[in-house]
């Protein structure tokens, strides 16, 4: 019995290891190529071999740095603006009753069911009318609107879980709405806000179609990388170095916040 279960355990570890290896192969090949010049690239891509061409990374950085900079700026603005608005709204919805509360909340949540394909064209025309095409605001304004819906939804249910007595005690001490929001609701929801920040950053980092449509002069990482790949389709070493460098900021973010994220998803706070 013991022997059989040990054997089963080994089999599981083998399955997991093989799968993990398969998942990681693309990134291994990416790293391997990023150190090669064209001749080495043509000879072998499966593993890195000396001499290592670090200059690929200089070329790659020069190419992707503007995109990374743009994306960090957009992600920062979108996160700051959308979370400020959505946390206030979520707080009001979770704490107070006022005329029209249910209808307003329903009007917000129904947007979760509207797919992006419906809005793409009129949003582009709207961006044209507002004169924000090819500027940072063409990205930021629309992203802020889009992210808020999910954020309000998640934050409201989180705020509702905070014991009422905490707020009531603060109210007795003379704290107003904003004070209660600022010194009770927000500090108690650091972890969920952390999860939302990560989700928004990943979203901005990965979104491709909207920047393609509206931000030709303000390319974010995803659009920038696909653009570069088309322009320099033979400089594989530098290209792969660029891919690697464009991934690093997310790696840093995750190194700090991975635990929150995994816990957030695992606890069921985020369903989709």
């Amino acid at each position, binding site marked *: 019995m013991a022997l059989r279960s040990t054997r089963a*355990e080994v089999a*599981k570890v083998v399955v*997991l290891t093989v*799968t*993990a290896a*398969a*998942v*990681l192969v*693309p*990134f291994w090949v990416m790293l391997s190529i990023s150190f090669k010049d064209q001749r080495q690239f043509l000879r072998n*891509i499966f593993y890195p071999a000396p001499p290592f061409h670090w200059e690929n990374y200089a070329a790659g950085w020069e190419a992707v740095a503007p995109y990374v900079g743009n994306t960090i700026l957009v992600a920062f603005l979108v996160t700051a603006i959308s979370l400020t*608005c*959505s946390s206030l*709204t979520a*707080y009001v919805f979770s704490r*107070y009753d*006022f005329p029209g509360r249910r209808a*307003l909340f329903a009007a*917000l949540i129904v947007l979760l*069911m509207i*797919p992006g*394909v*419906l*809005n*793409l*064209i*009129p949003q*582009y*025309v*709207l961006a*044209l009318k507002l004169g924000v095409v090819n500027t940072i605001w063409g990205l930021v304004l*629309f992203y*802020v*609107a*889009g992210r*808020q*819906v999910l954020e*309000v939804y998640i934050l409201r249910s989180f705020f509702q879980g905070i014991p009422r007595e905490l707020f009531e005690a603060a109210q007795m001490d003379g704290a107003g*709405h*904003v004070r209660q929001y600022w010194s009770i609701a927000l500090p108690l929801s650091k972890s969920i806000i952390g999860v939302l920040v990560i989700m928004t950053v*990943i979203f901005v*980092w990965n979104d491709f*179609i909207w920047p393609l*449509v509206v931000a030709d002069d303000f390319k974010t*990482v*995803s659009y920038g*990388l696909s653009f570069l790949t088309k322009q320099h389709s033979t400089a*594989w070493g530098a290209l792969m170095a660029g*891919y690697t460098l*464009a*991934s690093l900021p*997310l*790696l840093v973010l*995750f190194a700090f916040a*991975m635990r929150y994220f995994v816990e957030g*998803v*695992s606890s*069921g706070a985020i*369903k*989709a």
Partner: protein
Amino acid sequence: MTAKWLRTGYLYLLILPTFAFILLFAYYPSASAIYHAFFQWNGTNIKEFVGLDNFQRILFDDSDFPRAVLNMTFFLLGNILLQVPTLLLALVLYHLRRPRLQYFYRTLFVLPMVVPGMVGMLLWKFFYNPHVGLLNRFLARIGVIEAPWLGPTWLADTSLALPSVIFMGFPWLNTIALLIYLAALQRISADLIDAAHIDGAPTLARIWYVELPMVLGQIKLIFILSVIGAIQDYGRILIMTDGGPGISTLVPGLLMYHRAFRYSHMGYASAIGVLMFLVILGLTVLNIRYFKTHDEESRQAA
């Protein structure tokens, strides 16, 4: 009285920014899309009411549309099928006996999320490159083909392009789904597991009768998400083949994109968007109903 009014007014003021944003950037565009689906419209100066003409042309006269729907169906089936490996992996991971090992592999599987999705796609595009790509080099190395450039042309091949895009991303791990499954499995009460053990249920029976039913809700959620995803996501196809060669990988979303931004047929494209919206809405409503009855049943049972 005034004080109360002031307080309520203040609350509206606090939620005003959110609603100003969604009114202008979400509600207005949605209304505009539906409105303009009935117009011949180039987005700026030409705008003429044509009634249901756009819809009629899409459904009956556009020779690209049936092929796009067919391709989308293949993507949809592929998407559903490729959710299975993640579920199996979650089960294997859950059955690992040592928690530290479990944590280690979970971290390993979450790692790819750190890499931008675009990098993953571009790497696969490179893998499919017939001259220098990984796939043909590998086939040449193991002797299946004589030289990389003599192998299949994958994305440039009319009959191979569709399956190539559907099956890219081996081993098709869906990180978020994995975490959701794993969390659901770990919530199964120890009593239930013990009872199955005492009954002497073999592992496969335990999986089938205890564990899978407990994650059924999560399986449904991932299922519906992958169906909706397959209907509306065309970014991957835009990157890999742009619908080609010919229209062999075209899907309705991409057709909409092409009509809108290459031909400025904004009204026609809006009508395609409205059709896709209706399909997705129908699925969402079905899904909500389905989940609701399921919840009520379990509540009644409890």
